[in-house]
């Protein structure tokens, strides 16, 4: 229900706010893997995962590490794009 409406061509029943977007990071398969030196992806299910610190760190450092990935995000195209 949070997936923006503009993505309805790729997400069945999307009714989310169009002011949001879906972002992609990397091109690899969606599975447990290293993101960079400080972060990793832990997949709880084939469609749901959590980005978590690889080692124990302060929350502020974790947030900085997440922000550091921003430059590699790309917006998922929708509809006519």
């Amino acid at each position, binding site marked *: *229900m*949070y997936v923006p*409406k503009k993505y*309805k061509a790729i997400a*069945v*029943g999307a*009714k*989310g*706010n*169009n002011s949001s977007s879906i972002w992609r990071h990397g091109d690899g398969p969606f599975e447990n893997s290293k993101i960079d030196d400080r972060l990793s992806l832990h997949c709880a299910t084939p469609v749901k995962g959590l980005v978590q610190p690889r080692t124990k760190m302060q929350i502020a450092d974790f947030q900085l590490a997440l922000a550091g990935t921003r430059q590699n995000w790309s917006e998922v195209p929708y509809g006519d794009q």
Partner: protein
Amino acid sequence: MAINENIKSNLNAACELTVRLNELVVLGNDETKEGDALREALHGVWIELPKQQRDLIQYLSADLDLLSGTETVVISKVAVPRKSSRKPGAVQPPNLRHRVNKAIELGHWKGVLDLIRLDPIIWTAAQRAFLRAEAYRRIGLPAAAVAFYRFALTLEPKEWAYRTGIIQSLMAGSDIRELEAEIANVTRDPEAPAGALIISAAALCRQFAATRGEERRAYAERVVDLTLLGLGKPLDIATREPRLRYRARFMAAIALAELGKLRDAVAQASEGIRECPEIPQLYIFRGVLNFQLGEQYVEDFAASVKFGTTDPVPYGIMASDSFRRRNFRECLELSKTGLSLDPRPEFKAMFLMFQAISQFELGGSSAGALRLFEASRELDPENKTIQRNFDIMKARATQERRQRFTDYLYTPDVVTSTLNKNREELMSGLPIEDFTESGRLAAMMA
């Protein structure tokens, strides 16, 4: 698909929120605080649902795009296998319309929804909305059904099936005001067809069953008026089905009985029996009325037994009659059948008493009969008839059956008290909520 009450409640809440969110989307008001609050509330209930129900809501959200004119083709897993709708030996698979009709025939409503999504535009928008409304109503999501019926009505305002569909959906909910408003729309329209009037009466019948006292009588009067008005009109596509007509007669009979018009109620029940002679509940109901009027009633209960009622009461009444006629073999058989239907304790006690006496009178051992009597007394210790017959039975056992049969107390209290008990309990088998006619959909989609 049987789901527990908690899931059902969350599913309906998610459905209502999805419909509400979609209303905001249609109005272009969803990118607001209200829209975001709805999304948050919806996510809260949606996340609690099992996967199958989450999918149902997700696809409902997609189906509702019809209302904003933004529907897309959704490739989903189709629940109706092609095989089920294919004739043996056929080379070409049947087309989508045929598969949908087959799914309707099989009552496979989720399959109907899946199939429409494959190629929605082969149906008009009104047909799509109607099919979806019918499917969501049958699946048990009345809020979704109402949204689709209302949309169909905007496209074809003269189509009565949509209006009656709204009433049928609202019957399942708790919004009495909305239901009353829809019924008023039907009743004040002089062109309202028979089916719409009878279905409106059925909705009132449900309210009637849920109320007491003066309010109940007022509902009963409206049920009688609407039903008889409907039955007086020419048959339409809905009322051509005898099952709807018998239900209408049944409703009128129940409401008339509530108003104390027992003879009129008997007349309506008899008309219902004429329409559908194989419905056991109608005979039971008429039997109760005839009992109250002091008329012959055993034949009605006999007919309900003949048509395979699963209500133990008629078996008790029949067993009692056999007992009075000293037909112990028949009494024994009826008691055994009655016991197999898991009756309430006081009825079970009566059946055990009949069984004990019948077995003994047919030459069975006194020890076996006394054991059955003990079980009977344990179940209904206050029943004086059972106590009295137990004493007679004991005396006969010790006097080697010299005492005469007629010494048994014949009238079992439990039978008369049951006949006097609340009518709706006996009427629990009345399927007033399902007034849908199998032929209607097919006729409309042709």
